[in-house]
């Protein structure tokens, strides 16, 4: 456990110092501020627009950070051969993967929390009152991004960093549309097609099962039970992806 923590702390330090991260974060904050302009042309819907487009910015920039950093995390160690130094110490390959994930999870928390709190304060200032749902939405975005980080790390164990990033983004997009696969499954008449699409439905992470953004605009309320169930599902999915990544990484020859 302490070895995982050591890798995690190092990964956190390494990623949080990354200048690219700071640039992306600044750009995200600028985009959130830019939602003020959209709000100004929304004919009395300032609060709704800032919350909606602000959370879109948090989600999109969080995704950029998650995929690009996660994709290079393992590859960089392998390409620079620093992985040999690590494995010369009593650190297993699985511990390395889990430590990397934990470190990046910490960085992602700092990034998403920073953007969400900024948006929360901005929306408070504009709408004249605090909206706790923004913080809950930020937490849900963070959980979604953890799944993307785990899946991207899984891809990065056997493909290039660029391809892993692209695949990570594809999984995020597919995850937002996963319920469509289920609809197609129900429409299908062929048994084979149905079996394939049903399998795809289970393989793709369901990232759209719960959404606070819709409830922010008064489009239905979210039940705490469905929120809890979905959080457990996302955590389980990330664990499965990391176990698969560890398994592949263990068999990898450098």
């Amino acid at each position, binding site marked *: 456990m302490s070895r995982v923590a050591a890798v995690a702390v190092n990964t956190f330090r390494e990623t949080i110092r990354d200048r690219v991260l700071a640039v992306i974060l600044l750009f995200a904050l600028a985009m959130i501020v830019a939602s003020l302009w*959209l709000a100004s*042309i*929304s*004919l*009395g*819907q300032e609060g*709704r*627009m800032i919350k*909606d*487009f602000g959370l*879109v910015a948090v989600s999109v920039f969080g995704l950029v950070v998650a995929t690009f950093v996660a994709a290079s995390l393992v590859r960089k160690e392998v390409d620079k051969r620093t992985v040999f130094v690590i494995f010369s110490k009593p650190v297993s390959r699985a511990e390395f993967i889990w430590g990397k994930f934990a470190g990046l999870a910490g960085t992602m928390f700092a990034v998403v929390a920073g953007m969400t709190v900024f948006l929360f304060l901005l929306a408070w200032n504009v709408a004249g009152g605090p909206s706790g749902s923004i913080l809950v939405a930020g937490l849900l975005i963070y959980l979604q991004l953890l799944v993307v980080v785990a899946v991207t790390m899984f891809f990065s164990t056997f493909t290039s960093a660029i391809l892993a990033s692209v695949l990570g983004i594809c999984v995020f997009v597919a995850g*937002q*549309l996963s*319920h*469509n696969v289920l*609809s197609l499954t129900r429409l299908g008449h062929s048994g084979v097609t149905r079996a394939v699409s049903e399998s795809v439905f289970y393989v793709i992470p369901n*990232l*759209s099962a719960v*959404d606070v*953004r*819709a409830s922010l*605009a*008064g*489009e*239905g309320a979210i039940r705490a039970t469905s929120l809890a169930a979905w959080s457990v599902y996302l955590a389980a999915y990330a664990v499965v992806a990391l176990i698969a990544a560890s398994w592949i990484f263990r068999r990898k020859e450098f």
Partner: protein
Amino acid sequence: MGRLGRLGAVIAAVACVAVVVAYQATRPASAVSNPVVFIPSPAFYERLSPSTRLTVADVYWLYTIQYYGEHVDSDHRLDSLPAMIRLVTTLSPHFREAYFFGAFDMIDAGRPDIGYALLERGFKANPSDWRFPFYLGFFAYTFAPQADKDSVASQWYATAAKLPGAPQFVGRMAAELATNGNEQRKALELWTLVYVQGDKYSRQKAVAALDKLLPADKVAREKAVASLKDLVPPDLFDQFIADVFARYL
């Protein structure tokens, strides 16, 4: 690079900047865009995840405002406005301001009937919001055929008055329109409800209206007031009797 070379580079840079600025400066001023624009069917977006649907609705909301602002003061053509509002409200059915904005814009588009239908759809999706029947009453009164308008508007205002948050004047308007529409019984009931639910001012208006509507003959009036007994709470009934029979005291 020599001095001549540097000078050449500066001249080339200045010339390029001049070309860029000149090109942009000679662009024609933005013309009014086509009033008929492609708006996808809501079904196209309905299968997206809820958060995506909401963001699409918000993007089209901003687009709708720009479209309305651009055309309402120029060519007065708002051909695509109904489709835009339908898209926004289908993707975000509880976006109440979109219904109101769309309904009143349909007046500018010369199609208050679409505005009325839109408000009816909005009321179905948001049945607890008194503003929908209130605006439906306004549309009915303003645009319905002369023969029906008082009674239809009165019906909508009476519906609005029963919903939480409705101001006192809505009930008074319902009663007033029922009176104008010569719906004697309905007017009596609505004014009685205004008396029961209203503030001091509403009560004064209700007493004045009831005094005009109720028969002048005392016996006939007693009979008419007795038929309203169920609408008045027992603790208020004595006061109600005293007010509507004040002229005989």
